[in-house]
Structures are given as structure tokens and as C-alpha cells.
């Protein structure tokens, strides 16, 4: 563990550019209910709750800071299931329902209601070669891939909120030019925090436009 960025390092690195930047103005923002919780766009409320519980175990929050759930990875996935990841929507519906059914069968309670240790036990079970149900075969790997996208991807897509993902791994941020001295350094460069679509060079581009074949 000792290699993690210390809080002091983190503060030092972000001081020059201000604390974690606001989500870009042009970015998508999640629907929220009166309690401030995310309202899913593609999944049912139950399925979304299960998904939130899963991503929270794949890259968990711990004493060192927030994880995938806090970064908004579940909201990222839910929204992407309505566009770029639409082909995976049926897979998510079936997988999340099967996972909940498995939890009920084993414990009498929904997956999201279980404690972390029990959730991990079930996720390990379905991540083994012999998942108990076809809908769960390979499901953890699928969700993990998208959880990483939603934790470490550009905040424009709704994840990596407050740059939680980039802070977690110590990624110093986007920069249009890197100096020779930065390239050679064996410690950390100064951090910057912005979406690619906040950079003047790219702000007029729409990341979800199709490239036209004609």
C-alpha cells in the first residue's frame, strides 16, 4: 500500500490548478431524484441498484478514497446502454436479474442488500469458469470492462466524476504538450484536470457524432 499517493502529494499536485475541477458545462449530467440519487435511463430501478452494488465491489471505495460507484461508473454504463453500448443492454438485463435471483436463492435477500463480503463471494462464484447460469457466464468481465471505462474515461461521458478515477491512479491529466524535462522525470508531474472537450482545440467537437461514410 505505501506507494499510493499521499493526501499531501495529492493536495500539492492539484494546488496549482485548483481542486478537482467541476464537471464540464457541456457534459451530460445524470437525472437525479428528490434525494439526489441517480435515476437510471436504460435499466429498471432494481436492476440499476444491483449494478451499483456490483461496480462498488469491482473497484471499491476504501479508507484511501472513493471507488467506481462514487465515480459514477454505474450511471455511465446505464446511459451508454442507451447508445454506444446498446448491443449489451439485453446482456445486462439478463445478467443483473440472474445475479439478483442467485442472491435471493442463496440468502433470501437481493444482491444490493447483502454485505460486501457476501457480495464478493457471489461475484467470485459467477466469475469462475462454471457460472451457475448462462446469463452469468463472462458477465463479471463485461461489467468490469465498462466499469473501468466509467471510472477512468473522459468525464464528458458521465463517469469519472470529480476525476475520482484519475486521482485514484495518479494520472496527471490531459495536456496538449509535454516538455522534455517532464518526459525524463522519475517523479510525478504537475496535475491538470479537465475533459478533452474543455480544451479549446476540441470544444466544438461532438464525441458522439457518427463519422459519415459519404
Amino acid at each position, binding site marked *: 500500500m505505501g506507494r499510493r499517493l499521499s493526501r499531501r502529494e495529492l493536495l500539492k499536485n492539484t494546488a496549482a490548478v485548483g481542486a478537482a475541477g467541476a464537471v464540464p458545462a457541456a457534459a451530460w449530467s445524470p437525472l437525479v431524484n428528490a434525494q439526489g440519487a441517480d435515476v437510471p435511463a436504460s435499466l429498471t430501478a432494481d436492476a440499476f441498484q444491483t449494478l451499483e452494488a456490483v461496480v462498488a465491489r469491482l473497484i471499491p471505495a476504501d479508507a484511501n478514497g472513493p471507488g467506481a460507484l462514487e465515480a459514477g461508473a454505474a450511471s455511465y454504463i446505464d446511459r451508454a446502454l442507451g447508445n454506444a453500448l446498446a448491443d449489451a443492454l439485453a446482456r445486462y438485463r439478463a445478467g443483473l436479474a440472474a445475479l439478483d435471483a442467485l442472491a435471493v436463492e442463496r440468502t433470501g435477500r437481493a444482491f444490493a442488500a447483502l454485505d460486501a463480503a457476501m457480495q464478493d463471494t457471489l461475484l467470485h462464484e459467477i466469475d469462475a469458469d462454471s457460472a451457475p447460469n448462462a446469463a452469468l457466464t463472462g458477465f463479471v468481465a463485461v461489467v468490469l470492462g465498462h466499469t473501468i*471505462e466509467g471510472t477512468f*474515461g473522459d468525464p464528458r461521458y458521465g463517469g469519472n466524476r470529480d476525476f475520482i478515477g484519475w486521482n485514484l491512479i495518479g*494520472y496527471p491529466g*490531459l495536456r496538449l504538450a509535454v516538455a522534455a524535462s517532464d*518526459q525524463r522525470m522519475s*517523479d510525478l508531474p504537475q496535475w491538470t484536470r479537465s475533459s478533452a*472537450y474543455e480544451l479549446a482545440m476540441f470544444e466544438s467537437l461532438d464525441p458522439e457524432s457518427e463519422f459519415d461514410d*459519404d
Partner: protein
Amino acid sequence: MATTRTDVVIVGAGGAGGIIAAELAKAGMQVVALERGPRLNTSDFAGQDELRFFQRQDTRPDVKRQPVTWRRNASERATPLGSLAYGNQAGGGTVHYGAVSWRMHEDDFQARTNTIERYGADAIPSDSSLADWPLRYADLEPFYDQAEYELGVSGKAGNLRGTRIDGGNVFEAPREREYPLPPLLVEQPSLVFDEAARDMGYHPFSTPRAILSQPYNGRAGCSYCGFCQGFGCHMGAKSSILVTKLPEADATGNFELVTGAMVHRVNSDGDRATGVSYWLPDGSDNTVEADLVILAPFIYDNTRLLLLSQTPQFPNGLANSSGHLGKHVMTHLMARLLVKFDDRRMNAYMGPSAQKHSIDDFNADNFDHSGHDFIRGSQISIGTHNLQGGPISVSTINPPPGVPRWGAEYRDFIADAFTRYASMVAQTENLAYADQAIDLDPNVKDAWGLPAPRMTYDWRRPNERARVEFMLQRMEEIGEAMGASQVWRAPLSPGRPGAHHEGGTRMGSDPAESVVNRYGQTWDISNLFVVGSSTFPTMSGFNPTLTIQALAYMTADAIVNRYRGSPGPLV
């Protein structure tokens, strides 16, 4: 439905097709290029959107519309590959590639003869179709030079007309002059790699790449943003065909590019090609009639188009009287080793992935294979684990043994390792074998209803396994010498095709043993050419693009200066 007429029709406006289009159009020939994807501009690239370009692969083929299937052997049913590395736009793969730009060794062109001379015929696996090229390095040198200077390649010579130069690749073939541009900057992983490799008696150097280290031909130099492989360059500093040869072709007034054009047949009359037919996005079926037909898509479509274009005279595929069409496919075996440091940051996400340094001591026949149970070798480089090192690429970093792929321990691993790891890759030569092949999948169709190209391939043969194991051991030694606190191997692929697919329309000296001659001209149909890595008889441990480009220049030269005056066989 429309029928047009031109001098030359080229299928695919990528790394090879774009060069031939520009050279023939400059010589006054009327050229039409048909490109399946769009034509993008430098201003289309939000170069730092890793989700769009690295993860969702927006410049690459959509595997659902354009599937390529794979099976390990003829008894399996093939399934679609999950991602495809080639390009799907004007400029082809050169738009998003890492831009590593090697010349092959002199020895690579004569691997069969040299192996037999040095180690005896028994050193070649009995099932391998290892072959010499029908040309020598010296034949290609002027065209390598032309490609480096016209496109813009940065590097340092290691062999100038036979004089070895420390700091360049001392194993490279002799070059007539220095690179047009000096090497890119050096980053931390390469500093550490170089020092260790040099201490071990190896010869590290800055990898040559088609990225401008300073302004050149009106284009800006690289700014080291780090989002390079998988991305279109927002600066135009990557020497892609999109920013080099296509503007040249445009300027002639003799060049027309048709985008969104899906070519489905090469038309022929006996032993003469008459043109090609293609579908447009509006569903129309169109024909270009041409005196000269040049195929330059990625390797799958060279084989597929010729198979789809069979005639009574060529029932096994157009220009396939040899029966070698689709065979002798090779891919680079990517053996990877990870290193992590406690005392320093590697910051491997900085700079273009191709910036990293290499050694060539274990490539080709650059070392004595006596006593080893394999031939040929690998080029070994330091860098990120998989093509680029942005934050989403944490997904590509294989955790060390004992660390799971998810959960609290995984979180701790990536939090610790992301700025502290580097990865070495041995890009390992794959010998040619006739049964590593491409044909038409009888079960899977693409979005146009054509059978998908199907690869039958499994790299795990004894010679390949021994070569990969040897390289992993060498990389482990280098990793220890670098002072890494932890060194671990990434798992090897379960037989899956690796990087840089080559072969399928191999060139040769004998029409009975090959599909095309040294110029890419098919033996059977003299006005039908195939250009690209599908013609390579062997692959070396080197990335293919600069050799593809040199061959394209050589073919263009032969067409302009010889074929045009007296059409017919060039050999």
C-alpha cells in the same frame, strides 16, 4: 447504378493504396480509389478522447458490420474476433497506428537460404513454408529512402553505407543516408531500459517512427500528448497517408476518391481484369472499368475479393492458379513482461507509444541460434502494456500473480502501479505455415451479405513456443537489470492471431508457388496487382508498414516507367 471508366482503379486508399494513387496520378494517369470508410480531417480528431478512439475504436472497422472470424484448426467452428486493428477510413491504418517504421534486415529477405546455410535444412520446421523473397534489400533501399523522406520518419541511423553507428540500430541494413528527422525525445522508461540493456552488452536505440520530431514539409512536430496509437493525430504530426499522400494525389487533378464504397467483385474477362464492382451506402451497385486494377485493402479483403471473384477459368479464386491464395498467413506473437518500481515513477503514459526504445539484438538472425531449438527472433521494446498508456488502459495491465482482476486488492494494485510500471514486449516473428490461412466463412456474413473472411490459425507450434520462451527469459533478465522491484509475465494468448497480420497473397519467384511477383503483379492476370503485407513471404520481428510503403513505391515506379509503355508481365 453507374458505370465509369478510368485508367487505374485502386481498392483501399490506405498505407499502400494512397501511395500508389498519388504516384500514378502525378505521372498523369487517371486514378479512382474506392475506400470503404470515410475521409476524415485532422480537425475531426479530439485526440485525447481515449474512450472513443482507444476503447470504442472509432477509426477501426466495426466488428459487427465487418466481422473477421477465427478458429484454431479446421475442425472448429470459427467465431468473430472481438476487435480488428486495421483502419477503416482514407489513410487506412496509418491514421491510428503507432507509426513504428522499420526497414527489414538484409537477412529477412533471404531467411530460408540463410537458415539452411547456417544451421542446415533440418533447422526449418518440416511444416513451415519459410521462403526467400523474390527481391533483395538492395532492390528496396531506394524506395525505403523515398518513403522515409516523403512521409517523414524520425530516427538515427545505425548503419550508414556499412559504417556502424552507436546509438542507432547497429543491426539495421545499410542505408544510403541518415533519417530525414532526428529521434523523438527520450522518456523515463527508455532511460532506464537503455542503461540496463547497455550494461548487458546489448545495443538499445530510439525506435524509428513516422512521427515528426520537428516541423517538416509544412506540418507541425509532435507535442508528445501521449494519445497516439489508436488515435488520429490532432496535430497532423503523425505521417499518415491522410496528411501526406492523399493531398498530393488531390493536387494532381487526376485523382478521385470514392468513400463508403464496398467493393464486392473484381471483374475479369479470361486472363484480363476489366474493373471492379462496388456498393455505395444508398444500396446502388456500381462499376468502374479500368485498364489496371490494384488491390490494396487489408490482407483479409485481398484474399476474400479474389475468392469472391472466381470465374470458370479461375474456379478457386481469381489469379489463383497456384492454389496458394489465402495461405501462409503470419501474425506477430506479442510476448509481454511487466516491471514495476518502488523507487521511481515510470510515467509510461507520457509521449507516443512508439517513442519508446528498442533492442534488435535478438531479432532475425542477429544472434547465433546454434544450440537453440528455434530459428528467427524478436524485436524487443520498452513502453506501455498495450499500445498506449492513458488512464483507461489500466484495463490492459495484467496484475502480477496473486493479485485478482477486481476488488480491493486490484484497486490497490492499479493505484500503486499505474505511474510506476512499464512493459516490455518481444514482437516475435511467426514463421509461415501453409495451413495458417484465410478463406470464406460458410456461416458468418458481413453487413453486405458477403461471407466473412475466416482465419484458421494457432501460433502455438514448437518453434514458436521455444522462440517466445527464450524472449521472455531475456526480458526477465533485462527487467532485473533495470532494478525493478517486481517483474512478471503477462499470460500468452490461447493461439489467437497476434499483431500485424501478413500473407495470403504471397510473392515469389515461381508462379507455381506464389500468387504475385516482386511487383505485386499477379502471375495469372498481368493487369491485376495486389499491394500490401498480404504479399510478404516472411515477416521479421519488425512492424510491416514501412516495408508495405516501400513496396508500394516500387510497384508505382514499375507501373509508371515500365508497365505503362508496354503493358504485360513485369517479370
